[in-house]
Structure formats: structure tokens, C-alpha cells
């Protein structure tokens, strides 16, 4: 039986009717048409479906939509579009950390959750956070460099 849930997605209160077996990634993509979040392995081993829920990076493929009642969710759509990129997005482009781009939303949301909680992580902390994401084409060195650049440029700005 479908249940109506209200959740805050990217600052906007949204109401959807979902079956209990609907995962958050499917609700975002199919019910809310927010297709920036990708679905891949479905078993928590690639990090592609990462969104930020109440400040923490979580896997939307292993989260039931009904469990998100009243929660606050941030997806890649909140970060920026072609007119105004988020510093992480720009840094990923500058460092060649995007190739096919499929894993990028997940990696960037993971990095954002890290930087929101810890604006100046060291290399180990960046690697530890990004260890839950999986890029099959451009490799992990460049994603780490892209995140490190944002962490360092923030510091210089201060």
C-alpha cells in the first residue's frame, strides 16, 4: 500500500506517494524527476547513488523512501548548473576528474559531505571518505586532487 511522505529535497518540501519497497534513489529519479543522482550497483559497493541526508553522505540505493519522512535531502541538483558551478564541480573539471561522468554526482556529494563537516581535510581523510566511491574510467588520483584543491583554496581564501 502506498504511503504519502513529505521530505525536504534541496530546500523544497516535496510530497510523494511511495510503496514501502521504493528506494530513495528510485523516488528521486522517477517520482521527483531528479535524475542527477545515478543508480548503479544497488548493493552499496560503488557510492554512485550518494546523496546527503541530514548532513551525512548516505547510499540512496539502500535507503527506503518511506524512511525519509521529514528528512532533509541534498542532491547534486542543489550544487550548481552550467551558469554557476559549485567550487567542487569546477575543480573536478579543472583536474580532469570527470571522464564519462556517471560516478561524478556520487563522488561530488561524498566530497561535499566531507567538506561540510571538515573544511580542511588532510589527504588521508579525503581518501578515507572517497574510498566508498568507485570510478571506472578516470581513476581515483584525480578525484582526490580535485577535492584537495578545494580544501586548500578555501584555506587560502581565509
Amino acid at each position: 500500500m502506498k504511503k504519502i511522505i513529505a521530505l525536504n529535497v534541496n530546500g523544497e518540501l516535496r510530497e510523494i506517494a511511495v510503496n514501502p519497497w521504493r528506494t530513495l534513489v528510485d523516488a528521486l529519479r522517477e517520482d521527483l524527476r531528479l535524475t542527477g543522482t545515478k543508480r548503479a550497483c544497488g548493493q552499496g559497493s560503488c557510492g554512485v547513488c550518494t546523496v546527503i541526508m541530514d548532513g551525512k553522505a548516505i547510499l540512496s540505493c539502500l535507503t527506503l523512501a518511506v524512511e525519509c519522512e521529514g528528512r532533509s535531502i541534498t542532491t547534486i541538483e542543489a550544487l550548481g548548473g552550467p551558469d554557476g558551478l559549485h567550487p567542487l564541480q569546477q575543480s573536478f573539471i579543472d583536474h580532469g576528474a570527470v571522464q564519462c561522468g556517471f560516478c561524478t554526482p556520487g563522488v561530488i556529494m561524498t566530497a561535499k559531505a566531507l567538506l561540510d563537516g571538515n573544511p580542511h581535510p588532510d589527504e588521508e581523510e579525503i581518501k578515507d571518505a572517497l574510498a566508498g566511491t568507485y570510478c571506472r574510467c578516470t581513476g581515483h588520483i584525480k578525484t582526490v586532487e580535485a577535492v584537495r584543491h578545494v580544501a586548500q583554496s578555501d584555506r587560502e581564501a581565509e
Partner: protein
Amino acid sequence: MRLPHFEHLKPASLQECLAALAESGDEAGLMAGGTDLLCNMKFGVIKPRKVVSIGSIPELCQVSEDGDGNLQIGACATLSDLVQNPLLSASFPALHDAIKSVGSVHVRNMATIGGNICLAPRCWYYNQSQQWRRALTACHREGGIECHAIGGAQRCHAINSSDTAPVLMALDAQVCLRRKDGERWLPLRNFFRDDGNRHTVLEAGEMLTCIVIPKGSAKHRSLFIKVQLRRGLDFAIGSVGASLGGNGQGKEITLVMNSLCSAPLILAKAAQAIMEEGLNDAAIAKAATAARGELGTVTNLFTSAGYKRQIVEVLVKRALTELKTDVVARRKPH
């Protein structure tokens, strides 16, 4: 992969949850973080008709010290919260290390300690899609009489991959199992069954609610070491939790291996060697060799039996050497 259909229950309190469990019996699957349960449901490995969500029941999420100074951890405390908890990192660094080694940041943000202890055992044959499993006859896990992972095996040899279990066992943790009409406490080392098909002593309608680590274990030197193919995300292909009590001579030593058998394994013979001869290099070598022989049938998942015995030997040697170095360092006058 899509989830099968099920009914979703979200009890507001532990009492309500236990009542729902008593009513549902075997039909219910408990979901805290969901990282293990939902994954297994997608593969059709388990098929609960009802999913009982317990992750936000307040009384299951608390971490505190009881009146006697023992550390009480609610089963639904998330691994991320525990990693950041100063009570844990100060008194039980080995447990802190074990928790921090689980999965990834994402998984730790969702997964709970109770879920990690109860983690469903895994098998290279059985933990695949339904289509894959239909290709062969039913195995022990599916009610059959065969094992496709280890030919001729008389029982299911799925592997227990919990990282927290070996450390908690080495620290002498107790667990509280509740059901609608009562509760029982038992040492965690009596919680597991060496059978991949039914790997804990939990009865239908019963659930793990709380873990207690005795105050005395905080004085022990303890450590956790894990071997993985990759440092992130992968399940271990061998792990050891060790604790050394008393004056550091080796009379009170516990070594627990996991990710090799269907239940965490207490290495009695290896510990015996240290207890008899003390914590010295000769005894460590003897203990490491003895540990090889303590593994039973171990050819499931990732590597060969010979390699697994080698992992045990290496892990025991590393763990004991590290404990010895630590003891020596503390004895030196400052």
C-alpha cells in the same frame, strides 16, 4: 536490482517493536541501517514479508556508562556515531579501529553495531542472483542437502564477516536479547553458531538490543587487524581481535579470528602457547603455527584454504608481536 514487495512496520518504541516481532515470527526482517538486509533482499537471499524498521527507536540508539562503569551500547547506534564517541576511542581503541574499518563512510553513516554483529554470513555461491542459484540444485541454505561452495560439506559454510564481533568477543562483551515476554543476557562468544544457515542463537521473535563491555576490559591492551583486498569497502579475508589482560605476561590472552568461518573463532591452542610460555618470540612463533591447525573447513570466498591458513598464521604473529612491543614500551622507565 529491485526490492521484492513487503509490508513496512515502524514501531515507535521497543515495546511496540517486540510486540510486532512476537506477532510476525519468522516473517519479519529487522532493519536498522538497511545496508545488509536490503542488499540481501535484492538478491532474494532472504525474503521477509514484513520489514520492521528499528533504526530510530530512541532506546536502541543510546551509548552510556552504567552505574558500575561498564559501557552500554544500544544495538542501533550507527558506526559513524560510535567512531566519534570519546567513550569508545579512549577506553576501547581496538573496537574503534574495527568499526572504522567497516565498509565506507557511507556505509558507516547508515550501518549499526547490532547490524554488524548480526551480519548475515556470505558465500560465493549463495550470495548471487536468483537466476544464478537456480542453475544448480538447492544448497543447505535453501533447504537442500548439498553445498556448492565446498563439495561434500554436511552443513552451510557461509562466512561470518563481522569486524566488530571478534573485538567485542576479545573484550568479553555481553549481549542482551529481548523478546516480548522477557530477556536473556549472554556472553557474545555464546551468541554465534558455527553454521552458515543459522548463525546466531536468536529465536523467532527475539532481537539483540544492547551490548555491554565490562569496565575491566578497558584496562586490557587490545587490538584489531584486518586483511582486505582493497582498503575500502571490501569485506575482510581474515581479521583478528586480541586482548591482553593482567600484567602483560600473557596469562590472560584472548585471540579471536573472523571472516574465515561461519562463526568468529576463539584460538584456544594459540592462546595456550602464550599462557604456558609467556609473551616472547619463541612462544609467538609456536602460537602462530598452532593457529593454522585451529581452522576447520575454509575454502569459501576469495582465496584458497592454504592461503587462509597462512593469513591466520600471519595475523596471529602480527597481533602478538604488536602486543609484546606495546608491553615492552610501557615497561621502559620514562
